[in-house]
């Protein structure tokens, strides 16, 4: 410890600043509204009050919205993995007509903020009759340019010999992909899965636009509208926010090593 004392002081001090908002949040959920808004502010709850948590369940269909978020996240992640693996492999290893221009299209998509296409995308979803449905929330976001790009880079880095051996044994490209390449791509896929889960869990603007009934809202939208309506009830707002983040934070703590490896990997490409 003594060898790196300076480094420890900086890292620990900075780290405490990073987590201090969460610490305050947890403590404040047990305070009364009066205590939170008192001047000067206090840090320790005077009476440990659980009312805030009960209020969340009374004021929004929290469990239903949690379920919505889970369904949306799982659907998005599974579909993203399948599509990006297929596309990434095709771009990395196959030869086909207009491959160059199609890849340029994917790169263009990487640069265009999805937010800006909101108006025509909304019209399309509306014309399909998908407003206020899981299909409307999930399907427009299925093509993930970053994911396709990342998987292409990953497949490019794998040795060709295995594929060629399998081809000589008479396997068709579908079989080569499924039995040989996909198992090798697991590290890349798990990195992509982690990034997709995180983005999908917190995505706000698109679901905010396509969903209008409380029972179809994911937690992100539910939380935004909750704070709009109950803007001065700080303890229950904080409790709702905490419960909405808890599943993903637990997931991170359990899978920490994989998450960090995955992100480190995506950055190297």
């Amino acid at each position, binding site marked *: 410890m003594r060898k790196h004392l300076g480094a420890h002081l900086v890292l620990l001090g900075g780290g405490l600043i990073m987590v201090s908002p969460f610490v305050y949040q947890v403590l404040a959920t047990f305070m009364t509204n009066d205590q*939170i*808004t008192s001047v000067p502010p206090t840090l320790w709850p005077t009476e440990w009050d659980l009312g805030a948590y009960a209020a969340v369940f009374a004021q929004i269909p929290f469990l239903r919205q949690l379920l919505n978020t889970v369904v949306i996240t799982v659907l998005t992640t599974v579909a993203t993995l399948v599509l990006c693996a297929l*596309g990434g*492999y095709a771009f990395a290893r196959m030869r086909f007509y207009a491959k160059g221009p199609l890849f340029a299209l994917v790169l263009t998509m990487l640069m265009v903020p999805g937010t800006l296409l909101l108006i025509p995308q909304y019209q399309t979803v509306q014309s399909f009759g998908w407003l206020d449905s899981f299909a409307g929330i999930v399907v427009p976001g299925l093509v993930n340019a970053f994911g396709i790009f990342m998987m292409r880079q990953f497949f490019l880095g794998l040795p060709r010999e295995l594929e060629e051996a399998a*081809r000589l044994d008479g396997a068709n490209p579908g079989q080569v992909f499924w039995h040989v390449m996909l198992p090798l791509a697991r590290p890349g896929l798990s990195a992509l899965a982690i990034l997709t889960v995180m983005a999908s869990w917190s995505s706000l603007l698109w679901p905010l636009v396509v969903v209008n009934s409380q029972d179809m809202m994911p937690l992100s939208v539910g939380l935004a509208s909750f704070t709009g309506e109950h803007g001065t009830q700080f303890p229950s707002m904080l409790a709702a*926010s905490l419960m909405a983040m808890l599943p993903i934070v637990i997931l991170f703590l359990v899978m920490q090593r994989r998450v960090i490896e995955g992100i480190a990997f995506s950055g*190297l490409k």
Partner: protein
Amino acid sequence: MSARRHDGVWPWIFMTPILVPLAIFFLWPLLRTLYYSFTTWSFFGEVRWTGLDNYERLLSDPDFTLALGNTAIYTLIVMLNVPIAVYLAALMNRPGLRLRALYRALYFLPVVTMPVAVAIVWRMLYSGDFGLINAFLGLFGIQGPYWLSTPGVSLVAVAIVGIWLSLGFNIIVFSAGLNGIPPELYEAAAIDGATPWRQFRSITLPLLTPTLFFVTVLTLIGGFQVFDLIFVMLGTGPNAERSQTLVYFFYSEGFLHNDKGYATAIGIVIIALIALLTALQFRLQRRWVHYA
């Protein structure tokens, strides 16, 4: 095998599941956005061709200049992320440092949380009356501002949250970049009597430039696209309008003022600006990025 120029039908089996949604939910909306940017929408949704009117209006709209300036300021502040992340990653990567996993987790925690959820806490911390930040400043006799409702200050306040949210991600990416530098280089430099600072400047920094480039491009694009954080931190009131960024300006014209033709013209300009900035960065990278 290499004699064949195409792989027959197989690529299309792989590509069709991507190309169909790509066409419906990206290419077609992009073309329609371009078309709408030359139109004006009436209150009842009738679309009328008005040529370059929207673009001419944009050039003389003070709100556009404001949004452009705010976006540039926001992006510049968030860029502070990069040196801070490099510094912390270098500290964490010291050989033999203990508690590394704990530090990583502490810094990374904000990355996995939801912006809309953490905004609730930050709004309270920033409160001019009962916020902890001003109470803390008060200990030193400093009278803190009303962070989120003072023009100019509110953009800085949101940018601080932006840095807080993405710092952990960048630290991980830089750590990976640092791990890729061969330790022999440092050993050789130490034998030659190079100071730690000299080693950092002559070994670490040049070899880290590809990672620096990647993170800078992502931060810049992310800064230009910022919307969620402004929206959840400042809401939609008059102060949010004064602190609006480009994408917020697009959202407010299209959805709050229901001026969809004008909004799509703003969108096209934002896309062009991002493309321009990215192209510029790729041009400039030849001057400072070293690929081993």
